[in-house]
């Protein structure tokens, strides 16, 4: 799968037209989770966040490539052999937005200084 094909919009579109074999919203959701998980630990339960994790981005992302661009500018991504390696101190909180009617993802960073 190329970088272009991992865009949230692309994943949703191919699901819509049936060409991608992603027939259900659940499958789309899983595909998106896989993309976000390349950068850090994804959780839906705020209680799972480490106690020393603080909000890095107040904004909510709806596209994994947008989050990647944001993290890259902050020096918060790691790659090896062209593949993204999830960083242990990057946490991503997944939540459903009733307003947007879709899942959103927010970046938290652990304070690993102690």
């Amino acid at each position, binding site marked *: 799968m190329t970088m272009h094909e991992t865009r949230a*919009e692309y994943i949703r579109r191919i699901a819509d037209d049936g060409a991608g074999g992603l027939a259900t919203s659940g499958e789309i959701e899983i595909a998106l989770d896989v993309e976000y998980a390349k950068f850090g630990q994804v959780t839906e339960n705020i209680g799972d966040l480490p106690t020393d994790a603080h909000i890095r*981005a*107040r904004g*909510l*992302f709806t596209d994994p490539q*947008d989050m990647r*661009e944001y993290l890259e*500018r902050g*020096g918060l991504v790691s790659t090896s052999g062209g593949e993204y390696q999830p960083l242990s101190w990057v946490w991503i909180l997944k939540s459903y937005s009733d*307003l947007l009617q879709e899942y959103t993802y927010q970046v938290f960073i652990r304070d690993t200084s102690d």
Partner: protein
Amino acid sequence: MTKKNVRVLLAPAEFRETQRVLMDDGVYFIAGSSSLSIPATHTTYIDQSSTRLWDMGDNVEAVTPGEAARYELAAHLGDIRRVGWSRNDITLFDHRVPLYFSGPGRSEEYVLVDLVGAYHQIYRLLWLDVSYPRALGGRYYMAGVAGALESWKAARNAVVGISRSREMTAYRGYNRYSITTTNRYLSPAFWATICSLLCWVATEAIAYGAVYINTDGYIFPSERMADEFMLFLLRYDWLFTVRARGPGEIRGWNSYKVGAKETHHYKLGLPIGGKEFTSVNLADAEKWSRYWLRLRRYGTG
């Protein structure tokens, strides 16, 4: 504690004369677009023609657009120490508003379409601490600031200037200095988001046949092209107006006539010709279109 400056309102001619005298006398002063501050005497001279009476909480004062904008930012966003962004975000200031010129031309049916209060239309749906690109939400929602400044165009636009202002200009005599300042409202991502949304609209305008774009104004060489672009604007709930239409000529950058509207440069006959250029370079226009729809849903939800 910083001593508050004495404010002196001057007529435009007096203001210009004061600036000249200060420069001739070699007095050090900080120059704003419509004010001059002299640190040594704690005096600020203000061009009265740029001011409006503004409710500043304790009293009503004649203030500049920048002063009104800063007051409303503080009133609505609270005590911000800094917006919060990483060192590399500074590159986001490299974003530019869309400028596009496809070369000189003539047409019998030019149409000039303007977005109404473009900056304001955008930032009323944004957060000053928005994350780039295309994040939703933040601590400092701008709807309140936008609402308070709605009636004053110069103050509305001053908000955007403040969000990217990193320098002050000072003079001693006729020597000009740039002074780096601290600005608690500085937000590279806010600026970049506004530019990107304007570049998305410009990308669409070019696709519909626009031949000249300056930030939020789009000239089309035919009624049909303009009509199709306006349908696009309607679909995405942009507020716009047709500023001018009719036969005309585009001679060069900032030199055109569309119907009854003639720019100052055009009246002077300058410039003639000019090479085509563009600052519109947006690879992910489709994503920005979806972001705009999400912003609208988020803001009105």
